[in-house]
């Protein structure tokens, strides 16, 4: 108990970091754990690949210790059960554990949904979000908005009334600068002609001149070749 970085208030004695760490309330630790799991779940959905990670290694590293610890715990638990022979309490505990597990899963699931929505909201409402309106270049009336969060380089494109495409065709989203036409991805639309596209691309704040959507062959193209469906000039924010 030697780690004292400040004069302690009355009644408070200096504690080392391990003890201060251990004093973190369980609710705080659990909340951090839940946030991590939710972030990982959201992140995992967008990640591919496989391979051994540190947890696998950790399992190897701590394997023997876990086995010894597990055997000790099992022995202790057996003794307690023999002495107390309290089956009812055990059943109750199992029921609570099951309920806790269910609730934890539910919390994790809700956390994932919240993270996803927070991300969408942030990309629409950030203080540095720039908005580009796209209007129709055809007789139909598709319309679209592009939200560009310049702080995070997140692009969120929302379109309505987009015409249905024929087989082998796709829509392709373009960020237009004075020098380039940069593909921000291909997309299809719902039966109602709606679409939401999210992309991440760093771009100089002054470089964007327009946002456009063209109709292209399935899979997209390196440079726009097809009919322009909607386009919007990027005004100064």
């Amino acid at each position, binding site marked *: 108990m030697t780690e004292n970085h400040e004069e302690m208030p009355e009644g408070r004695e200096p504690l080392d970091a391990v003890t201060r760490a251990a004093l973190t309330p369980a609710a705080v630790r659990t909340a951090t754990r839940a946030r*991590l*799991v939710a972030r990982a779940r959201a992140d995992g959905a967008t990640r591919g690949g496989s391979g051994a990670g540190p947890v696998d290694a950790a399992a190897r590293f701590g394997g023997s210790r876990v086995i010894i610890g597990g055997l000790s715990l099992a022995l202790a638990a057996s003794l307690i059960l023999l002495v107390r022979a309290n089956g009812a309490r055990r059943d109750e505990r199992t029921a609570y554990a099951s309920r806790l597990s269910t609730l934890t899963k539910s919390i994790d699931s809700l956390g994932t949904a919240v993270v996803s929505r927070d991300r969408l909201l942030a990309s629409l409402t950030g203080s540095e979000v720039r908005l580009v309106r796209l209007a129709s270049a055809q007789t139909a009336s598709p319309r679209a908005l592009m939200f560009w969060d310049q702080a995070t380089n997140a692009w969120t494109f929302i379109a309505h009334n987009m015409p249905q495409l024929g087989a082998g065709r796709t829509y392709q989203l373009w960020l237009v600068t004075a020098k380039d036409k940069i593909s921000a991805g291909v997309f299809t639309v719902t039966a109602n002609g709606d679409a939401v596209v999210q992309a991440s691309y760093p771009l100089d704040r002054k470089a964007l001149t327009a946002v456009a959507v063209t109709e292209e062959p399935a899979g997209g193209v390196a440079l726009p070749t097809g009919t322009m469906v909607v386009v919007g000039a990027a005004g100064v924010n």
Partner: protein
Amino acid sequence: MGSGDELALASLYDRHELMVRACVLRILDRPMDAEDVVEEVFWQAWRQAGRFNSSRGTVISWLRSIARSRSLDRLRQQIRKGEVDLEDDDSASVIAPGGAEGALLDAERAAIVRRALDELPAEQRRALELAYYEGLSQSEIAEKMATPLGTVKTRMRLAHQKLRESLSQLRGEAT
């Protein structure tokens, strides 16, 4: 974890959270800052799971390395914002913790401390949490727990006494 299993991350957190938290708290004083950094440490571990090489060190040393690095980043940030004064001797000392303290930093000892805290009566532990985690004064704790000030003082004194005993036992084992 490298294969995207979030439960593996939860398992890693359960196993090493206390060790990581202690490492962070050696560098950062404020528990709220430490909380953010602890989360970021495990998040970085999740994101960089593929880079972990067990032949170059243990998971514990890998996590400690991340924790130290992220904590120092946060400390530099605080210094830039003027929240921490580098001229302060105490602040300087936390940047380079001593070897003896470093030796104490391992998951097993941390677990023993937590067990000692778990053995405290709930009201004593709560009083300590309010004092050290939320930074409340004894009067504020008394108000929050709807308990006479004298009772709070007694609880904290008894809790400290118990902790001292547990920690001196730890030191005895360490030598």
